[in-house]
């Protein structure tokens, strides 16, 4: 019995793996970089303290919110949401085929499919990594000021977001049903649409709802560069020190984003309920 115990103990794994010298240096360097980052970010307690009263001043001067331009602002807010909705829908429609190309394991391994996979992944990454504000600037140059530029920017941004997550959802789908259809002689194309897409559908829908929330938030900002929506109203109000108007706009944005998020959460939980059975 005692022998058995000591034998077992000798085979116990270490609680921690002792880091090697190289790892240790890496950890220290990482920590140093984090500390340095705060300095680089201009972190300053004194500015934080002196900024307090200025913020309080802004808040006191912005209260109560002014209601005089409410009709115009409501129209601008609606336009903001319409941009988000239209842009997201266009983006989702464009994402689907791109995601099929960018999902591993849907096509037979070959040199061509590797090339298609890599280039579509790169394209999606480009759409995703360039910030939507930059896309908005580009589209303002291309199609002029106004909501259409913003809609295009949101569409591109959505392709970057949905393209990636749609592709990953399709990669994660169970392989059995697709194998069954392949065994029945179905083509790749039919197999993807009959076996992979339905199984990935809950994931597609939740991703799309997230994309809509994201688009609603960014459509507010896009107005700042003249790409339509309520953002431009906010900028003008701020530039003219009309803080009461600015507060109205901020609150309206808050309510809109909150509503979209609530609806999104509700719809998602409905869908997940349906798929857990």
């Amino acid at each position, binding site marked *: 019995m005692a022998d058995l115990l000591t034998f077992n103990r000798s085979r116990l794994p270490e609680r921690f793996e002792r880091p090697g010298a190289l790892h240790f240096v890496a950890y220290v360097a990482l920590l140093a970089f984090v500390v340095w980052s705060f300095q680089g970010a201009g972190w300053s307690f004194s500015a934080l303290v002196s900024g307090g009263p200025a913020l309080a001043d802004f808040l006191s001067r912005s209260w109560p919110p002014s209601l005089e331009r409410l009709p115009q602002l409501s129209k601008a807010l609606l336009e903001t949401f319409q941009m988000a909705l239209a842009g997201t829908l266009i983006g989702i429609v464009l994402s689907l085929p791109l995601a099929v190309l960018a999902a591993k394991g849907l096509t*037979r391994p070959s040199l061509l499919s590797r090339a298609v996979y890599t280039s579509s992944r790169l394209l999606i990454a480009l759409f995703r990594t360039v910030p939507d504000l930059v896309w908005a600037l580009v589209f303002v140059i291309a199609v002029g000021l106004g909501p259409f530029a913003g809609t295009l920017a949101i569409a591109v941004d959505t392709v970057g977001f949905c393209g990636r997550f749609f592709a990953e959802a399709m990669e994660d789908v169970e392989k*059995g*049903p697709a*194998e*069954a*259809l*392949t*065994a*029945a*002689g*179905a*083509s790749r*194309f*039919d*197999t993807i*649409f*009959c*076996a992979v897409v*339905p*199984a990935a*559908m*809950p994931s597609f829908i939740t991703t799309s709802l997230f994309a809509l929330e994201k688009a609603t938030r960014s459509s507010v900002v896009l107005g700042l560069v003249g790409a339509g929506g309520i953002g431009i109203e906010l900028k003008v109000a701020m530039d003219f020190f009309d803080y009461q108007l600015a507060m109205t706009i901020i609150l309206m944005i808050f309510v809109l984003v909150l509503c979209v998020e609530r609806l999104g959460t509700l719809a998602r939980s409905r869908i997940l309920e349906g*798929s857990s*059975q």
Partner: protein
Amino acid sequence: MAQPLLQSAGAVAPAVPAAHAGTNPLCDLKVEGLCKSFGKDRSVLHGVSFSVGREEAVALIGSNGAGKSTALRCALRLIEPEAGSVLLFGEDISSARQRQLRRVRAEVGFVFQKHNLVPRVSALTNVIHGNLGRAGGMRGWSQLLAATALRDRAMACLDRVGLADQALKRADQLSGGQSQRVAIARALMQQPRMIVADEPVASLDPVAGQEVMDLFRQLTREEGITLLFTSHNVQQALAYSDRVLAIRQGEVVLDENSSGLSAADLGKHYG
């Protein structure tokens, strides 16, 4: 229960004598020298050879992990064997192009060990998918889009496995046994010349299991469909086959007519 089954199997002569099955020109499936390994040191099949004659019912037995499912997958090139050749309906598909492969696969109804139904769509849609090998395109994607004739035929297939009343139920809401029967209906939808069934009744209750095996027998006897199935039930394997193959550690160790075999003979090939 096993005894009468055994007798009834012995009473009917096999459609194709086993001794000639290998050389029979009417040979639906003939695999030779299949080798398959997963990774470097997971060799699963070492030169598996067997054949299944036209309208013959062949049982494939062997313990867990012996390589039965792998052999069946290789026979349709769902996974690529490293070596060996496959003749399906006389066509060499060892190096067939995708188009030829699809045409030949469409003639084989493959029932998987795990039913492999598409979740979130109806049982009827799953059955209609069985026709995709013959006619692809949108109209075969869902019962919503399918032509009336196709829906009728799919309903008939569901009816054959006793599930016509569950047609519009979502596949992921069916019980395990119901799912397996829908998978069989999907295979029937292909109007196959041959059915390959990997443990088709493992998840069915005894009555449903026997019904399905009886259906298979009826298909071979009356409609001339060739059958290759695996089973862990040696009595069932004997009762419903003309010939039994046993596979052990990736090699075929038995290939004999069922009529001359007893359950005890088969039991030896486990463990």
